[in-house]
Every structure is written in structure tokens, then in C-alpha cells.
């Protein structure tokens, strides 16, 4: 069960950012009492709660484990309860984080009004909000899924008018559907100004019988968004899908009602088409889009492709086939219900196999967010932190190619020294707008060993203990730089 006390404890993270006081003080202010020592895993290896809190969040906050364990009598049942709540983010009060985001008023503007802002302002606000949510949102699994889908349906703010409309893309397309139904998400993406700009759908026009449609979106729809490159489509299918989608466009900044998505019948190829063996009759007009999306969303290759990508993100860089099959089946049986699909993933044998715990390397954004979360740091996600994301090669909404940021560990080991530099600058308090109190953290856990056990989600090894003991003032930076903290 969840007590008011636990809710308040959890809320302290966001509160402190609002009030400017330390995390412990914030809690004390609310409760008027000393909070109990937070829980840590006392075993030498991760247990299920530790694995779940590490793999499915942007890092373990000092209060996370105690809050999870309080949900039920045994750790495993408590872990289940935590997952169920996280799969239904609407049941989790996130008002503290939402208040932090609401201060960034540009992010709440209606689509057309976004054009009133400078591009760099929107880029900064969206980047900062993305990091703040990763650090302070209590809907951690939802945040993880938002990142996943922003990679899967990648757009780049440097292309065309994506600079303005991507704020609406993240807010109105990705976030509402991240744990919803895949077909709804796919349709929202297909009809979003950001995707129409990013993959040139807006200029896919067929005005006479000899005109050649723009294939860009059609190809990536099949290859990246749905079936996968080996999913059984041909070049002919790409061209037929491009014909089906011709005529959809979006009004640009020089027009009245900027950002409005509309269908131009005179730019649509209204002849008969065949997509993946299914006939789409002539004269379908704007209905062609829904026919195409239905065919691809329900194709068996799509279930497998999405399942493989989810397993790669949440299980292992090379997930076992059995796990992919299991998740693909849940996707199919539930008609693409993403919460049920994720539940199948999290309950799979592969996800729960201790051999796979801490097998994933945190990608740089995850790493930076987890440094802030794990230490209960206060941050306004200012430029100095964001600059490090750039150095680490992992700025959200700025990846140029439609395959999204890579998921495999090897893609990210080249900037390891920058992770250490970040750990140093962060722990030593050298990042403007970001504060961490290492001593308070140790006080909170009662000892350095317990603090290390929190950061590693297990007891430190002798080698780790020795390194931290001899490190003096650098201990926190070294713990954050160590290979155990690089993984999740």
C-alpha cells in the first residue's frame, strides 16, 4: 500500500527544485519529522527490485527502493505492484514535475503559436524539459517509453520547420500514446506536422500521371516504423505506399494557420494501388492513408520489429529470440496495446534472468539523468549540463537520420572520458544551475558503503570500496564514473 508519507517523500525531489532547499530539508519541511534511512540492497548482486528500478527508470533516486518495497510485503510482489502502477502513469501524481515544466511557457503554446518563438528558444526549452522530466518525473517508465518512441519515430529539429513543430510532436503525438495503442501512435505520427516536414511527406505530390511521388516517408514507414527492413516489402510496395500518401501536406510559416495538416485531393494519386498484396481501390482519396496504416500496423512483421526493438532497449543489445517471440505475441494478441506489450516484456524470463541484470550500458542521456537522480541533485537543466549531452553525442531531438539514436553499447563507448569529466564537474559542483550535496547523501544513507550500495544497487566490491575509501573528496565522482554506475 502507499502511504501519504511515501508520496510526500517521493515528492520531495521536485519540491526542492521549487523551493531551493536541500532534499532532506524539503522533506522535513513537509513532514516536520526526520525521514527514515532509505533502503539499499544488502546483497552482493542485484535483486529484482534493484533490477527493475535500474532498467526501467532514468536512475534510482535515494527514496525509490524504500517506496517500492512499501508497496507489498515481499520484494517481488512489491516490484510487480510498482510495474503495474508505472504502466498506468495516469494513476501516478506527477504534479510537482509538471509544475517545473509549466514554468517553461513556450512548451504549452498551441501549434500555430509556436512559430512566434525563436528556434533556439524552443530547442533549449524542449531539451531542458526532457532532461527535467527524466530526472524528476515520477512516471519513470512512461518517460523511458517516450524516449523510446522519440527514437523509433525520430525527427530532427534542424530540418525545415521541425524547429517549431517538434515541441507539439513530443507533447501531442509521442507522450499521449507512449503507453497507448501502437496504431493510434502511428496515425498521430503520420499526420503530425513534424513528420510531414522531417520525411518530406508534405511535398509528396502527384499532380499528373507521369509525376514521381516523393518516397522518403513511405520507405521509412515500412523499413523503420513498422515492418522492418526484412519485413517482406518490396521497392514496388514503397512506391505504392508513396502514391497512397500523396496529397497530405502541412501549411508552412508563410501561410495563414501555420502548421495545419490538410489533404489536397488535386495532389493525390487516386488510382488503384496494391500494398503488400492488398488492393486499395481507386477513388479512396484521403481514406488511402488509413488503409495503408491498417495494413502495416497489423502486419506480423510489425509486431516482431517493434518487439525486437523494445527487447533490445529493455532486455539486452542482442535479446534472445524467445523473448522477442513472447513480446511480439503480446503485441499481436492485444492489438498493439503498448502497456500490455511492455508488461509481457517485463514478465518475460529473459528480463528476469539475473545473468542479464546490469547487462546494458546506459546511453549518455540516461547516464547524465541518472547522476542527477541518484544523488537527489537540484538542477535547472541549464546550458552547462546540456553542453555535456552534446559532448557525449546524445542531444534529444537533434539526431539527423530517421533510424534514431543507436541502442547498442559499442556506439557509445567512444566518449567514455567525457562521462568521467561530467562526473567530476557535477560532483565537484562546477556546473552552474546544478547542485549536489555529497555529504548530505552519505548522511542520508548513514555510511559511504551504504551510499555506494545505493549507487550500484548492490554492495560494493572490495576493489570498489578501496577505491572510494582512498579517494577522499573525489569519492562521489569516482562512484559515478565507475563501470558499475555506467550500466543499468
Amino acid at each position, binding site marked *: 500500500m502507499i502511504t501519504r508519507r511515501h508520496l510526500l517523500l517521493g515528492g520531495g525531489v521536485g519540491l526542492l527544485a521549487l523551493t531551493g532547499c536541500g532534499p532532506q530539508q524539503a522533506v522535513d519541511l513537509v513532514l516536520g519529522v526526520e525521514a527514515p534511512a532509505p533502503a539499499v540492497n544488502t546483497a552482493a548482486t542485484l535483486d529484482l527490485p534493484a533490477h527493475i528500478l535500474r532498467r526501467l527508470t532514468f536512475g534510482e533516486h535515494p527514496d525509490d527502493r524504500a517506496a517500492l518495497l512499501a508497496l507489498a510485503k515481499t520484494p517481488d510482489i512489491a516490484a510487480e505492484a510498482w510495474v503495474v502502477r508505472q504502466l498506468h502513469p495516469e494513476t501516478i501524481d506527477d504534479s510537482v514535475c509538471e509544475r517545473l515544466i509549466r514554468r517553461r511557457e513556450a512548451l504549452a503554446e498551441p501549434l500555430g503559436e509556436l512559430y512566434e518563438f525563436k528556434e533556439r528558444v524552443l530547442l533549449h526549452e524542449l531539451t531542458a524539459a526532457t532532461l527535467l522530466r527524466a530526472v524528476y518525473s515520477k512516471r519513470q517508465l512512461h518517460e523511458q517509453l517516450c524516449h523510446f518512441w522519440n527514437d523509433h519515430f525520430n525527427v530532427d529539429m534542424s530540418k525545415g520547420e521541425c524547429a517549431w513543430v517538434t515541441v507539439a510532436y513530443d507533447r501531442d503525438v509521442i507522450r499521449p500514446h507512449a503507453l497507448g495503442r501502437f496504431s493510434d501512435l502511428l496515425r498521430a505520427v503520420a499526420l503530425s506536422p513534424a513528420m510531414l516536414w522531417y520525411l518530406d511527406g508534405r*511535398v509528396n505530390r502527384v499532380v499528373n500521371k507521369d509525376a514521381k511521388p*516523393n518516397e522518403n516517408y513511405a520507405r521509412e514507414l515500412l523499413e523503420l516504423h513498422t515492418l522492418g527492413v526484412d519485413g517482406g516489402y518490396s521497392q514496388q510496395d514503397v512506391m505504392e505506399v508513396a502514391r497512397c500518401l500523396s496529397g497530405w501536406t502541412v501549411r508552412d510559416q508563410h501561410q495563414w494557420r501555420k502548421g495545419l495538416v490538410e489533404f489536397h485531393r488535386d495532389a493525390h494519386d487516386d488510382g488503384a494501388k496494391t500494398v503488400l498484396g492488398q488492393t486499395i481501390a481507386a477513388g479512396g482519396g484521403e481514406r488511402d492513408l488509413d488503409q495503408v496504416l491498417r495494413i502495416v500496423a497489423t502486419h506480423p512483421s510489425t509486431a516482431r520489429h517493434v518487439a525486437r526493438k523494445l527487447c533490445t532497449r529493455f532486455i539486452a543489445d542482442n535479446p534472445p529470440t524467445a523473448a522477442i517471440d513472447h513480446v511480439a505475441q503480446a503485441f499481436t494478441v492485444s492489438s498493439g496495446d503498448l502497456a500490455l506489450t511492455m508488461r509481457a516484456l517485463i514478465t518475460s524470463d529473459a528480463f528476469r534472468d539475473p545473468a542479464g541484470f546490469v547487462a546494458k550500458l546506459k546511453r549518455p542521456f540516461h547516464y547524465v539523468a541518472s547522476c542527477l537522480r541518484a544523488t537527489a541533485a537540484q538542477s535547472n537543466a541549464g546550458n552547462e549540463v546540456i553542453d555535456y549531452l552534446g559532448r557525449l553525442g546524445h542531444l534529444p531531438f537533434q539526431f539527423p*537520420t530517421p533510424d534514431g539514436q543507436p541502442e547498442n553499447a559499442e556506439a557509445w563507448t*567512444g566518449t567514455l572520458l567525457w562521462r568521467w*569529466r561530467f562526473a*567530476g564537474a557535477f560532483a565537484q559542483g562546477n556546473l552552474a544551475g546544478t547542485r549536489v550535496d555529497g555529504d548530505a547523501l552519505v548522511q542520508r544513507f548513514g555510511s559511504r558503503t551504504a551510499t555506494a550500495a545505493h549507487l550500484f544497487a548492490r554492495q560494493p566490491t572490495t576493489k570498489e570500496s578501496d577505491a572510494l575509501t582512498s579517494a577522499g573528496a*573525489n569519492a562521489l565522482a569516482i562512484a559515478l564514473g565507475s563501470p558499475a554506475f555506467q550500466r543499468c
Partner: protein
Amino acid sequence: MNDRTLVLVFLRGGADGLSLIAPVGEDAYHRARPTLAVKPGTGHRLDERFELHPLLKPLGRWFDEGKLSVIPACGSDDDTRSHFYAQDLMDHGGHNVSGGWLGRFLRQTQGSGGLGVLEAVTLGSAVSESLRGAPTAIAFTSLDDLGGADDHALMDACSALTIGDPLLGIPALSALTASGRLDALRRAPDHPAHGAEYPTSTQHGDTAADFGARLRLTARLIQAGVGLKVACVDLDGWDSHFVQDTVIAPRLTALGHGLSAFATDLGKDLDRVSVVVISEFGRRVAENTSLGTDHGRGGACLILGGGTTGGMQGKWPGLTTDFLEGPGDVAVANDYREVLWPVLKRHGANDRTALFPDNVVSNAS
């Protein structure tokens, strides 16, 4: 062989071969591309049929001097027309092979005197897929990436915990070792030789300046004799479905000015360097309704330096309908591995089958 350097410039996104090496002498070219075709006489003349794109004119000098080979209709056996699949295939050098072809090349030529950690470098944020399987490989974009003003106590402690880690140990050790080796280079003044002028942001745009800076760093590594055998430098963003000229102009500028400055900078050292420029595929012959081109097959390849004989090379399949592939693409008349092999041989490779197992031909060819 131990002082030779191979520089691979991968044009990611599918560079339009018919713009880089424009067949201005073919009527079919102008019919298929009423708005996008390069106008005859505006580029650098290669022969009676071809011209280099006007923005590649700085490379004309190297062609005329016999230092630049130009190969049209070059590509792989990929017919998915997927960027990512085609890039993977070209990075790996075959369908069912282990690691990348440059990784196999480096293993094959191991023992011929490489100096270790700076033997294979990607001037970018991650080690290139083509280097997978190399005895050692490292990625960085600038000397800053490899330290200088670091907190040494922190770096030491982090490395002590990391070295030996199955995933992070080798990257950590490589980065730290390279950092030490590059200290001298970091202190040395950074002046291009022989009056070479690399592209600048103000004059040539950010894309060209960034590409030029990575080429300049490559030249410094070559000039400093750090044992560089392979350098990978990507030039991204060639996917020109929409208003192609706007998309590719900054990249052509980068390629033309950047490579020309690099060759000038190297001076006589260019004789021991080969620069190979490839892309995963070329683009559709006919332009689409949005002044762009869609994914195609055969594209362009350029080879600059001492490892090539210069001039127009390879077969040309022509652009008439009978010779086009699929939806209207330039046929791949010159497999990229056929083109690479003579270069790799000059850089010490001796076993073609081991490099490209599913492109079997005699080692003697």
C-alpha cells in the same frame, strides 16, 4: 607499407552520383532531370561525357595531375535501397561476414609495423562499423576529446576501476593511451602546410568547416607519424528527396574544398596516402515532383592520392531505359570491392578472399 594511410570518407545518406560525376554528355540525363541536371560546361571536364560538379571544381586540379580517380556507377549488391541496410552491408564488406572490412584489413596487415593505439581512428563520435574487429580502434572528433586539462586523480581512479571491464576496459585504455601519445601534438602549433586553406564557417559554412577540421586533424596525425594506418571520416546528410540542390550544396563544398586542402596540406606525403570516397548507394535517375531524387543503386566513388592511377575508371552502363535497374536506377557496373581491392593491396593487403569472403575472385586480379 608501415607508413601508408588509408582515409575512408563515407558519404552517408546516399549521395547522388549523377551530381558528383555528372554525365552531362548524355541526353537521357537531361531528359530525366529537367531541373536538377548539371549544365554542360559548368563543372570540371573529366572526358567527353562526364564533368565533376561545379562545387567539386577544387578537385579538378588533382584529376588533371593524375592523383584523382573517378569511378561512376559504383555500389554494392544491396537492392533494398535502405540506407541502414546498405550502409551496414558496405561497412561490413559482405552479407555473412564477421566484423567490418577495415577491421579485417587491419588484422591482415598486422605485424607490418603499426604503432598501436592510433593505428585506426574514426574522426567522429563512435568507432566506424567498418573498423569492427580491428585489433585496436578509437574515435574522437578533436584533441580536446582526449584530455589535456583533465583532473588526473579522478581519471586515474576511474580508469583503475574500468580497465579489465569486458565492455569498457579497452575503450578506456585506448583513450587514455592515445591521450598520452597526443600530448606532443596538442602542444605543437596547428598550421596547415604548403599554404593549404581548409574551409571556414564564414566562407564555406559549418558543414564544410567541420569536415575540414576533421581532415586537418587527420593530416596532423599523418604528419606527426603516430602510426595511423586507417582513418574514417564520415560526411553525412546526402539524403536529397526534396530540393536536392539545397541539400547537397554544402556537402559538395565540404568535399571539394576539404579534400583539396587536405591533399595540399600533405604535399609529398600524399603519395603514401589514399583517400577513398564512397556512399551506400546513388539515387534515382529521374527527379521527383519535389525537386529531389529517391533512393537508387549505382553511385559515385572517388580515389585521391598515391594509391591510384588517376583518370576516369570503371565501366559506365549508360542511362537509357534498357540499362536502368528496378524503378529507374543507374546499374551498379563497378562493385565497390573491385574498386577497393587495388588500393588495399597497395596498403599491404594480400588476401582478397579473407577481406571480402562473398565476393570471390582470384587473388591475382
